[in-house]
């Protein structure tokens, strides 16, 4: 059964230095409040997994939490670069980070395989791409029925999954609605999971085939209203596209970034 904790307690109890952490939410429901709490608690040497690192990992990488990044598209969507990620990769600031990159299809399949308890995912992918030359985790297998050559990647099985969702009921069942991304998969694939929610309610109000994670499939739940901002929560608040654009200016410069981090993360408590 999921344990209801404060966000501070959940991060403190379930995320350790050196852990492999996957914080998911495909554009929608990105767990920013949890990311900021990880920064405040100065977690270090994390292997961070996310299809789209987005601003949340740009901030965590800039704050020095990451040792390694596994990803498939590392830009600021519709805006440009993630400058903190680039600064780490290109200039080693605040320190060098290792990167391992995939395509979206491969990562989506790897999460799916992780949720399915399998060691590998098989896909028709990476044909003609140079990515297999720089990622030794991409292999190829032969179909025993047709002889076709197919790509294989290891499944994602993180130590901790972190997601944000619209709401939980009082027993700890969680509803995710809208762009559900790979959130169900990452929670099921992980050893432990932290789910932040907009609110805790008596009744989820879920439709019959809704994306609901049962309480017994979740480790910890923390209430974090507006916990996805500047990403969004369908039915609660919109994506703050203006902030995504502003981030380009904030993150481009180390000093501006550090000032932003101090004011908006360290000097503010859990969102």
């Amino acid at each position, binding site marked *: 059964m999921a344990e209801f904790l404060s966000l501070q307690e959940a991060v403190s109890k379930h995320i350790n230095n050196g852990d492999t952490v996957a914080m998911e939410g*495909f*554009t*929608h429901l990105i767990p920013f409040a949890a990311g900021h709490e990880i920064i405040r608690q100065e977690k270090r040497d994390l292997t961070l997994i996310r*299809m*789209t690192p987005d601003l949340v990992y740009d901030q965590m990488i800039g704050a020095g939490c990451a040792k390694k990044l596994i990803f*498939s*598209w*590392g*830009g600021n*969507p*519709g*805006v440009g*670069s*993630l400058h903190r*990620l*680039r600064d780490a*990769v*290109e200039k080693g600031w605040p320190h060098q980070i290792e990167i391992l*990159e995939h*395509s*979206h*299809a*491969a990562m*989506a*399949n790897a*999460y*799916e395989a992780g949720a399915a308890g399998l060691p590998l995912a098989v*896909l*028709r*992918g*990476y*044909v*003609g*791409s*140079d*990515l297999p030359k*720089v990622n030794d985790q991409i292999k190829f297998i032969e179909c025993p029925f047709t002889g*076709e050559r197919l790509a294989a990647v290891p499944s994602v099985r993180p130590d901790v999954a972190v997601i944000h969702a619209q709401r939980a009921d009082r027993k700890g069942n969680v509803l995710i609605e*809208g*762009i*559900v*991304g*790979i959130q*169900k*998969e990452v929670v099921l694939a992980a050893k432990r999971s932290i789910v932040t929610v907009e609110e805790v309610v008596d009744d989820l109000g879920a439709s019959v085939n809704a*994306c609901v994670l049962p309480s017994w499939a979740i480790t910890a739940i923390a209430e974090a209203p507006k916990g996805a*901002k500047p990403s*969004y929560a*369908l*039915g*609660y*608040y*919109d*994506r*703050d*596209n*203006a*902030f*995504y*654009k502003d981030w380009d200016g904030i993150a481009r410069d180390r000093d501006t970034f550090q000032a932003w981090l101090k004011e908006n993360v360290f000097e503010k408590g859990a969102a």
Partner: protein
Amino acid sequence: MSLEFTSSEMMSVTAARALTNDMTCFVGIGLPSEAANLARLTHAPDVTLIYESGTLQTKPDVLPLSIGDGELCESALTTVSVPEMFRYWLQGGHISVGFLGTAQIDRFANLNTTLIGDYREPKVRLPGGGGAPEIATNAKEVFITVKHSKRTFVKDVDFVTTVGFGRDGKARDNVPHIGRGPTVVITDLCILKPDPETKELVVTSLHPNVTREDVIEATGWDIRFADELVTTPAPTARELDVLRDLKARTNAHHSSTQSGQQ
């Protein structure tokens, strides 16, 4: 009767025209998204637009900034998980056109969105592959739209993130279950198509007021022109009106901070 339009508008309108009503289009963010929605709002109202965030058959009123804005989900027929999107809808063979942008493109229409320079010591680190590597091979064909410049149009890309026809133009030969690959590249100067034999990109149409020299100047290899080189039809007044309205709505929407409850 001659309308004023920018080269960017010319590119978007021309790219939009490549889509028809019966296509199911997997849309990349940025220029492809602008073109695809322009098509939907003009000559192809029933074109099916799909974004990798899981939104099936979506009809946004403003252009999304990201691939997963709320607008996409709220106007979609339904929204599926990201693994389902890549497994069932893309790899399952239901996408007729993948519409992509790029940072670099070479003469065999290979795309680089990974990095400039050497992989372990990058000069410029770009965002990476995203959906493109498998869109390019699993969609039945691929349209590419990108601004024309010598930095972008290079003889050989630094890194093949997404295969066009490979380093030698033969990467798709004898590969089972692979799409036809890039069939058209639309820039702000011209339209290019792969040579049916060699797969090298050839200019087939110049946009109004663009010269061969303009294209040669903006291309990093010895670019060839088709024997029957034509002039791309100029945008119509309606196309320009719809495009400008769409961009105005989009800019107004994205510059206001959306912080209230819905």
